[in-house]
């Protein structure tokens, strides 16, 4: 089955290459993002090479390549912003070589356009660790990958940013740069509000690295400040209920006045009775 597919694709490719002279080429920027849940998103921005206009509504194939092997991951159309997105690709579906290198190929063609792009990404594992040293809160990362022999080693030069998610967007709290052992650490800020019990989601993220693409790890840690939502005061001038002294004063005044009114009205009633 796989051989048949490969053959078919090879033939297809030959066709594309053959026809390329008459068609407009494409300028493709392909990016790789691995989200915290492990699924992969491939995304590309597509422009034509002549006018540098966005190319819309063109079908693209996403293909995973490893040596001779190829696997079609899926297809998508470019939208009005010239974006082609294939998200939620299970990581297991992607082909890797011995040292965990991955190659992605994006192919798109119709009557007018034709083009393809390749992206090589080294698969790395990012782990986040928390520790307290001399009552200083420290967050550290270990970035590991595989060498040519398939051995797990530390990966150098990984720039990892830390974020905490907020209602609107993620708030950056610092960054580290891994050493030859794939390790680096930083002080964790102590004044970040978390939820009611101080839990905080910490995101460690590598953004658009040429070698590793984008990837992130999310860890929940109770290093945030507990957030207390104070209930509004019940009896303020601006709350629905009036301050007590106001209610009491009002009640006394009104009662005092109306008691006298009633007294007078009773008097008038007695005058009337006397007049009969």
């Amino acid at each position, binding site marked *: 089955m796989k051989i048949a597919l490969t053959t078919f694709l090879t033939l297809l490719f030959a066709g594309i290459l053959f026809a390329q002279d008459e068609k407009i080429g494409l300028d493709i920027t392909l990016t790789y993002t691995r989200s915290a849940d492990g699924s992969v998103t491939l995304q590309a921005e597509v422009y034509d090479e002549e006018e540098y206009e966005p190319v819309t509504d063109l079908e693209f194939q996403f293909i995973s390549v490893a040596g001779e092997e190829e696997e079609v991951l899926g297809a998508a159309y470019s939208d009005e912003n010239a974006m082609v997105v294939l998200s939620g690709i299970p990581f297991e579906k992607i082909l890797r070589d011995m040292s965990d290198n991955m190659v992605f190929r994006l192919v798109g063609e119709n009557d007018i356009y034709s083009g393809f792009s390749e992206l090589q990404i080294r698969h790395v594992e990012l782990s986040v660790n928390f520790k307290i040293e001399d009552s200083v809160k420290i967050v550290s990362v270990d970035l590991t990958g595989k060498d040519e022999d398939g051995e797990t080693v530390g990966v150098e030069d990984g720039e990892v940013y830390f974020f905490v998610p907020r209602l*609107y967007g993620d708030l*950056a709290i610092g960054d580290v740069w891994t050493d030859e052992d794939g390790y680096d650490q930083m002080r964790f800020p102590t*004044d970040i509000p978390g939820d009611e019990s101080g839990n905080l989601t910490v995101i460690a993220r590598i953004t658009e690295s040429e070698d590793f693409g984008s990837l992130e790890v999310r860890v929940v840690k109770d290093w945030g400040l507990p957030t207390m*939502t104070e*209930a509004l005061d019940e009896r303020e001038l601006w709350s629905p209920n009036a301050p007590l002294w106001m209610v009491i004063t009002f009640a006394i005044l009104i009662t005092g006045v109306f008691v006298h009114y009633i007294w007078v009205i009773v008097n008038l009633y007695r005058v009337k009775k006397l007049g009969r």
Partner: protein
Amino acid sequence: MEKERRNFIKKGAAIGATGAAGLMTWMAAEDVNETGEKVKLLSTNGEIIEVDKAYLKMASVENAEQMRRDLIGREPVPGRKFIMVVDLGRCRNAKKCIIACQKMHYLAEDKEWLKVKLLKDSDAGAPYWFPKLCMHCDNPPCVKVCPVAATFKREDGLVLIDNDKCIGCKFCMVACPYSTRVFNWEDPENPDMEGAEFPSTETSLPHYHNTVEKCDFCPDMVRMGKLPDCVTVCPNGVFYFGDENEDAVTNGDETVRLSALLKDRAGYRYMEELGTKPRVYYLPPVNRMFPVERGYRDLSEEEINVMKDQMK
């Protein structure tokens, strides 16, 4: 966006129904024979809850509408304290915020909930553009004076108006020192409300003739976790909006620490001495992105003169 709004209004109906049902449960708990059949409803906290079908029938038709409005509009977005920071150094009177606000709230062209003023703090000081929204004060003078509780302060910091209760006495307009509130002097145009069966206090819709309205920080949007339109539309990122509890604000591009922003940029509140405790902070107009004259571009000679005359 519009579609989302509509959907939200529909969602509001479910929220309201839950609340009404809850109230009825409390009122008539003993008289109801439970059917055993449960109905799933969305609570005001966004949780799905189950209610016995028998309770649903209890909601009286006449009061249901008002109850829904009360329950949707007066419940805060849980756990939030909304806050805004306006960077005066970036504003060039582009007025995109005003137009977006008018579109968002279906306002007529001459109606501005959000205004941009030209201010000057001292004789030798430099003039600057000053976007003026509702300050959503924590000690709101407008809410204090409302005789019918039509305008109210929520736990999430917002000051809103229940357009259905407002009697149009305008006392809140007089009490607001920032002249934030506007009045529907003429019968206002309303959007086609089809599909939006239960308009809520949070959408400030429909507009009613002879009642008071104002900037509401788009509570229906923020409930959905979206930024108000004035924030996202501003080309210069003037407005930062966020949750004070989280100590973070966003201007659409960047998310920053609120406390750090206010500390580093010497944030202040307009007319602190009034004691209204606004929820809108301003960053002083320093390190300007644009000369103040950029803001004159789209104004007529007459408008510029009026502004310069009244500039204080």
